């Protein structure tokens, strides 16, 4: 499933990042490489998803969330 399918307060693990190298490099350098654990802090269905990973709060646009495969942890 993709990142935006997780609900608030659910934990997950990044599985795969789909997209071109530029996108992958951006996500990885922001601290979300595959197998990173994270917690969804806010997902209201419309705004960008807020998650917490590696001690950092990160906001990701919903469109970009679709390109990130995750599994529930």
């Amino acid at each position, binding site marked *: 499933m993709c990142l935006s399918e997780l609900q608030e307060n659910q934990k997950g693990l990044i599985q*795969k*990042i*789909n*997209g*071109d*190298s*530029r*996108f*992958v*490099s*951006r*996500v*990885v*350098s*922001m*601290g979300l*490489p*595959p*197998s*990173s654990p994270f*917690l969804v*802090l*806010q997902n*209201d269905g*419309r*705004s*960008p998803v*807020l998650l*917490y*990973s*590696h*001690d*950092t*709060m*990160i*906001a*990701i*646009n919903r*469109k*970009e969330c679709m390109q990130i495969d995750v599994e529930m942890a």
Partner: protein
Amino acid sequence: MRTIALLGQPNSGKSTLFNALTGSHQHVGNWPGKTVERAEGYFTFDEEVYRVVDLPGSYGLTANSAEEAVTRNFVEQGNADIVCIIVDASQLERSLYMLADFAGIERPVMLVLNMMDVAEQKGKKIDVQKIQSLLNIPVLGFTASDLEGYSKFFDTLKRAVEKPAKISSTKIREIALANVSDGRESSPILKLEKLLDYLDFGNREKFWIVSKLLENDSLVRSEVETAVTPEHWKQIKEILDAEGAEGGLLTGEAKYRFISETLREVALAGEKTVKLSRFDKMATHRIWGKFVAFFILVLTLAVSMMIAVPIIASCFGLQGVVGPFVNQACESLGLWPAVASFVNSVIVGGLAVTVAMMGFVFAILVTFGLMEDTGYLARSSYVFDSWLSRLGLHGKAFMPLVSGLACTGGAVCGTRVLDTRGQRLFAMVLLWSIPCGSKVAVVLFLASVFFGSAAPLFGVIYVALIFASFWISSKLFGNKLMPVNERVGMIMELPPYHKPHWKILLKTVCRNVWEVFKKAIVVIWSISLVFWLLSYSKDGLVAHSLLYHIGNFIEPFTQIFGMRWQLFISYLGGVFSKEASLGVMSVVFSSSTDAFSLIARNEAGANLGEMMRAAVSLPEALAFIFASMFNVPCVLTMGTTYRETHSLKWTAAIAGYYFAISLGLAFIVYHIALWVL
């Protein structure tokens, strides 16, 4: 002289360190041939001068944008004697990615774990000594905002100078190789290394090159392509194409594993349950968050204006006090009356206007500094990103754009919060069309003089036109300044809240205001001088001034835009400041008194309305009102734009663009009005 390059991710406190180290010994310009800002400064330690280069912040060393390319080239080419990597100790694991990405560049390096105080508050225990022995490079744990603690920084620097240490990528390579499911031998890393076997990459280890190849880094790709035989390049390309974006994941994951393995023994995280604070819930709410942003912006601006208003007020009073004194002095010295007029209008007047405007710049810079320092700015960007991304801008542009309503020139300085130069320039282009309070007042005043109760309608049309101009600007400049293929939808860090560092903040703001002042005063004095020369006449009659003759001469041309010479000169006066256009009008239409004194004092003659109604037809009035809407905002805006872009070319280009828009609009409106009315 030794050169230290500061390398760190955004929000790592890099600028704080830079400012604290160099103080007022700074120089900000552009990288040669690049449209990226270059900040460098100097300090002396142990009787040696150090040059500090503040590299543009980036999350890693892959060159995806102009800023990242500059950063990357600088460290890679070995331009620095010491690379000082700054990381946020409170987010150590993520922040250390920069170090892992750097590993393999064989340059002396030191690591600064900044914000140790925040890390401690979060319950993290970091064993700095242990990190140092594991990485085998000088490591310092400190807090850049604590100005007392810099002796520790210099001690570490000394160690880095005396015993240069490098960081190798060997461990990362091992991790990446162990991570291949069908055995090491099938790893693209080994295959690529074999193909590059006979090459020497100078400063960089082979694995670093291989990993950048796998990450599809354009600079390394073209470097390798020119270095290898066409046959080998074909093979390399086959491997890279087969890997696709996977290659970047392979190396990225290895780098993070390297970090977590290093940290496993040295940093104990105080695992706490993480929740969005109540304030953050509001601040990031889709609807409430926008109100919160407006409220905070207006409130902080208002408070900082309270500090600035006395300065502004006293400046406008200055001329009244100094004027008679100058007149008297000139008279008693037996000087030409023109000298007194020159000193009063150009020197004193220009100074008063500039200092007064610095009040606005100060207020806006304090406001933005606070928002950035506390971490709130990122929240406002989060709630407004969806609006601004339509124009290609980052959500961060919201704050500067809205402060444009208070003062365009000040807001231009506020665009500094944006990360790339393209974004900054584009925000400036948009800002020029956002009217400040006095521009709105002038437009509505003119509208009410000629159209009475229909004036509010002009307000509505004005707003619509501003949005239309945004659209036009984004079509014209958007792709050039922010290439579509470089845009990535928002993936943004929301930094934890910090207490503002008042001392550093105010110091930085004051230094910036001083820098802006120096540029602005030159621009304002030069333009004042031109206006003064043009409008001067011995007897004070406009008909005897140069302005009158030039005006008459160019009238056939300006009439295309519906402006007779009086109106056109007033329009040009509007370039000085919006109120000045009214001042000029009262002069040219009353054809008496010293024109310049009215420009400088921003006065509209008392019966200006009546005079204008008698002298100006409705189509002409319409043309002038619409031209005023998109006229160049004011000299301060030109001055600050020049100061922020470091480019006369861009300042002139933006000014030319707005002359074209405003005159074009006047042309259209005038000819439609002639036809309809």
